[in-house]
């Protein structure tokens, strides 16, 4: 599994991509990634296109991120979910708290 992040050159989008397994083992990498959002108040995109597995601790990490970032970012979107991952997010009512596509 691996986690990468980047801020687009215009400072308007901050993307975090998690590959493979989004679980407790990436807690450190995940938290330190969003410490780099910067001052430009970007939109955060959590790109799950290559996330095959996630567990409830991943849900916890997403909520912690939301709490921690607050209004230092414009929005948080969970993007490119595979069908099964989307199902898990919907069952967890995450579509009420995040923009999901």
């Amino acid at each position, binding site marked *: 599994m691996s986690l990468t992040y980047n801020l687009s050159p215009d400072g308007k*989008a901050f993307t975090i991509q998690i590959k493979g*397994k989004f679980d*407790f083992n990436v807690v450190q990498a995940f938290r330190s990634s969003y410490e780099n959002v910067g001052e430009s108040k970007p*939109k955060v995109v959590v790109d799950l296109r290559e996330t095959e597995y*996630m*567990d409830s601790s991943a849900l916890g990490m997403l909520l912690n991120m939301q709490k921690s970032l607050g209004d230092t970012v414009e929005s948080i979107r969970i*993007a*490119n979910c595979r069908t099964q991952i989307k199902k898990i997010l919907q069952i967890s009512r995450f579509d009420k708290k995040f923009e999901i596509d």
Partner: protein
Amino acid sequence: MRVLVVDDQELNRTLLQFLLQDEGYDVVIATNGEEALECFDNNEIDLVLLDVVMPVMDGFATAPLLKEKAGELYLPIIFITALDDQASLKRCLEVGGDDFLNKPFDKVILSAKIRAHARIRALALKTLEQKKQLEYHQNQINREHEIVDHVFKNALMDNYQDKEVVDFYLSPHSMFNGDVLLIATNPVGGIYVLMGDFTGHGLSAAIGALPLSKTFYSMAKKGLSVGDMAAELNNQLLQLLPDDMFCAATILEMNSSGKSISLWIGGMPDTFLVKPDGTLKKIINSQHMALGVLEADEFETTVMNMETNPGDRVVLYTDGIIESVNMEGEMYSETRFESFYLADKDTSIETLISELVAFRGEAEQNDDISVAYLTCTNKLQAMVEPEQPFSKLPFHLRLDASAEELKNTDPVVEMLDVVSQICGLSDHRSVMFLLLSEVYNNALDHGILKLDSSDKDGDDGFMDYYFKRQDALSALTQGDITIAAEYQPNGNRIIFTITDSGDGFDMAATSDNTVNDKEHGRGLSLLAELAESIEYSDKGNEVKVVYVLEA
């Protein structure tokens, strides 16, 4: 060297025959024009000595017919005639003769003339031979081009085609296009578009499109991000292309809602984002160097993310448009291109191209020209994979992990890898992972490592818990966990039973739902929603999760 002697006088014929044979030439004899034509058909003739006044067919009538038969290969015809008036001699040359000599003729002059014309004949033969070789090679090249063209067409056949989503105009400078436009849908919905421009044009530029397209399609199928795509394509081209060749490219992904695009742009002219009414919304600059230039460790995968609205258009094009030159030597230029979208008018591809053609006037196209419009849309939704039929066989699988194995392996993932091999179960692996990892982590964290999950509260609590867990795990010397999976084809159920060697817990104390809004309670409530049933048994150190796989 064979000479045809045409004369009705036997004396002349014999005289010429001896003279020519003496000089080492083969001689063929004809007594009039008709015979001469016949002889020409039956022998390979290199030169003709032709009398003018003869019965049946005279020399003036014969010469043009012989020339016609000789076709494009030079056949020297020397008239030997007793006529010496200006008009007759002039006519000799007009009907196709190359030279003339008066009778009685001078031997020395005749052989000198024959040698001179023989040299020209030899040159003509050589030229004809070269021409044949040239034609042969030309045919060979045409054949090769047809084959390559066929391969190209097939290689690019996988392109997603829907003019409403991606409309384009491609005009190669020569037979093969050094520009490339690749389009593929994303399995999670949305679309990828790659527009590339290889150095130069023609076949050498086009050849790179083959590996590029193959890799692009396979990455699109996996739904990779444009940054990862760019990195992979860069590595491939770096390895394949010579140092002075590379590929400027824009790689774009539009998401399934049509509300956002991400772009990796290297070495391409500015990309335009145009509103539905055709006016310019934003100009996006190239951020990187072209593909195939930088080593993997120098390569940057940073992408631009843009918000779009359905109906917005992204204009992708290669420098062939803005570098089009008119008769006055002026370039179409980025400024003209930009003002095309600033003016309040129809900005369709057709209009753009007709404006460009009008600008160029009589001047020839000097590069490959490509332009593509991607219209943002939400109509490209995730593809529904055909579901595999479920296995009809009942399976029982089981693994026993010792303390050492709990420390160093990932039993959940390995168990799932095996379970996913059962026909029909692979589509459900993400949900199965969630179910199994929840109960496994409970067993490991609380049963074996004896951690208290109330430590998890808050962001810092999460991290503290993580470190405590790491410490406890590395200090672990005793304990084991058994994972059993049972697949029941009747009712399509998968049943996981996890048993740990811990002390169990007081079920009554945790069965209330007050913990649901806290991070650590989320797992259990999610489990309850996804599973058909969850059952603790023994002293609480064995849990059985039943999941119904929906067809």
